[in-house]
């Protein structure tokens, strides 16, 4: 997967490139709008991460030029301005997502994966599996090692999210938004308690742990051999 980052802030650009490379992506970096547009037009990137405020051409102009040239590569905007009009403008121009600085890198990574997964359609699986953990989406049933686990509706939704995106570190804010529809900064304590309760059901009675806390980042569901 090739990602192009267009970001004029030196440190932000460097860290984004490093972070994305270490997450397994091929990342290119342009430090101004003109180079960014040139690279975007000539390269074959799967995703563009565009800063809105750029010297030369701003992020919107780049997106506009790309869409005029019928390049429909997905675009994720980064901005320090959090105005509703900006958001609407970006989405109207055909941006796929929008992140306001400061953002957590884990949040960016999660959004990048969401955007890249989009459009890659396939038959929706009816059962999710990781190691000996199994989630039957049709019958709303969870089992581990063949043993039935009783989950509340929200616990089921939480486990489903972790399973669908296993191996990815999910920030608390993303979990709150996806499972409880809390699309604003909310009490992250709640997520911790909820994760603890989920763990007490799917991890504690068993020898190997699947749910891991990544301090300062979030949670990840991972099979022990994959770690």
């Amino acid at each position: 997967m090739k990602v192009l980052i267009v970001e004029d802030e030196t440190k932000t650009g460097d860290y984004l490139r490093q972070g994305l490379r270490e997450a397994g992506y091929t990342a290119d970096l342009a430090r101004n709008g003109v180079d960014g547009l040139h690279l975007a037009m000539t390269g074959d990137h799967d995703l563009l991460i565009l800063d809105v405020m750029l010297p030369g051409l701003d992020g919107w102009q780049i997106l506009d030029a790309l869409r005029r040239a019928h390049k429909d590569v997905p675009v994720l905007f980064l901005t320090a301005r959090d105005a509703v009009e900006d958001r609407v403008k970006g989405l109207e121009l055909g941006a796929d997502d929008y992140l306001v600085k400061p953002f957590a890198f884990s949040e960016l990574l999660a959004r990048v994966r969401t955007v890249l997964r989009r459009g890659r359609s396939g038959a929706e699986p009816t059962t999710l599996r990781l190691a000996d953990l199994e989630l039957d989406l049709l019958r709303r049933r969870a089992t581990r090692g063949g043993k039935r686990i009783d989950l509340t509706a929200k616990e089921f939704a939480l486990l489903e999210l972790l399973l669908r995106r296993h191996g990815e570190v999910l920030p608390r804010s993303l979990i709150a938004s996806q499972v409880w529809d809390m699309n604003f900064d909310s009490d992250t304590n709640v997520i911790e308690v909820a994760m603890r309760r989920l763990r007490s059901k799917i991890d504690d009675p068993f020898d190997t742990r699947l749910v891991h806390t990544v301090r300062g980042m979030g949670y990840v569901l991972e099979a022990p051999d994959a770690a």
Partner: protein
Amino acid sequence: MSRPASIATRLTLLFALVSSVVLLALGGLVVSALERHFRQQDIDLLEGKILLIRALVGQAGSDAALPALAGPLHDAFVGHHDLTVRVARADGHLIFANAPLTVPEAAHQPIEWRSGGHHFRALSTTIASDTPARAPVEVTVAIDINHHTAFIDRFSATLGVFILAAALVSALLGGWAVRRGLAPLRLMKARAAAVTATRLDERLPVDAVPPELAELASELNRMLARLEDAFRRLSDFSSDLAHELRTPISNLITETQVALLHTRDAAAYRDTLASNAEEFERLGRMISDMLFLAKADHGLILPSREAIRLEDEVTDMFDFYDALAEAGHIALHARGGAQLHGDRLMLRRALSNLLSNALRHTPPGGRVDVRIEHAAAGVTLTVSNTGATIDPARLPHLFERFYRADTARSHSEHEGAGLGLAITRAIVAAHQGHIDVESAAGVTRFRLHFPAPAGG
């Protein structure tokens, strides 16, 4: 658009104009009264002369006696240079005339005319005869009224000069009076000039100015009070922000530099970085909360409005906080329901902040109650929790930014930056609502009231 003339100039001009008009009208009245008086005087005189002539003519018993009247008539009018008399028979035969007299054709009596640089006024009459022996006699008496008209002309000219002078004087006096009258305005101006960013507490003198200006002054004072309040909030905002950022940033610097002092193993570095990341996330959240409040302060929040069933949102929130409540052995209860027009995301955020706050301050075994009431006056949502009663002196401060009921500022991991209730209040205000809090007998109660939309 051109700038209007100063009030002093306008009032002065108006003053001069009004006094000129009044004096001119008065002058006109005097002149016309004078003219009427002279005219009456002339007519009285002319009528007297005609009476005299009538008596003389009456003595003549026949036409033959008429020419003999010339003598007595001459005697009667000798020395009266301003009088012209003509006595003639009705058939035109002249009996007596002391000067050539041509009376213009006129239908009405008395008549006036101008001839050879002189003004005349005349009366004519026909003296009928009581005997057929004498024909009727026509008499015309005219008087030269030049001295009257000349007097009126002189009088008018003098009056004009006086009026002009009086208008000038009243303009000057008016200007002076206006300047004196506007003195309170200059006082207000001087006070207003003293108002600066550092001295916003300066107020205009309401008691020292006339009633007309007092209203303006107190309205301006109210504006100043609003500005002072907004300005104070803005400067508090900046200093709060700087203050609140200082502690975590200082922690981050210390922690990072201590970690760099010695070579450590990877786990120690990871620990430091993770702790930093948590602190950074908290800073990030605080900044976005501050931005939200700053926008709310400027009234920039424009919630998208939709019909929201409050009880559904409460159920959703309970779903979210359920695990936390259960872990703290706190019971959650909800009662009632109502529909409200508002922004769903914002109302959820307000509700979430209130519940999070309530749960944080409820001891194990306590309960949190949400009650929704719908009345004609509007919708009321109450969130109450059991727990320590809050000192009444602190209640009004709960909605202030960065205010923490526990002054010890124990930065527990999950305690917010002290912005939650301020944000809740801003959201409620954006919905034209009102929030208050009471705390008594071990129950703290936050009450959100949303008035029913006017006319709906």
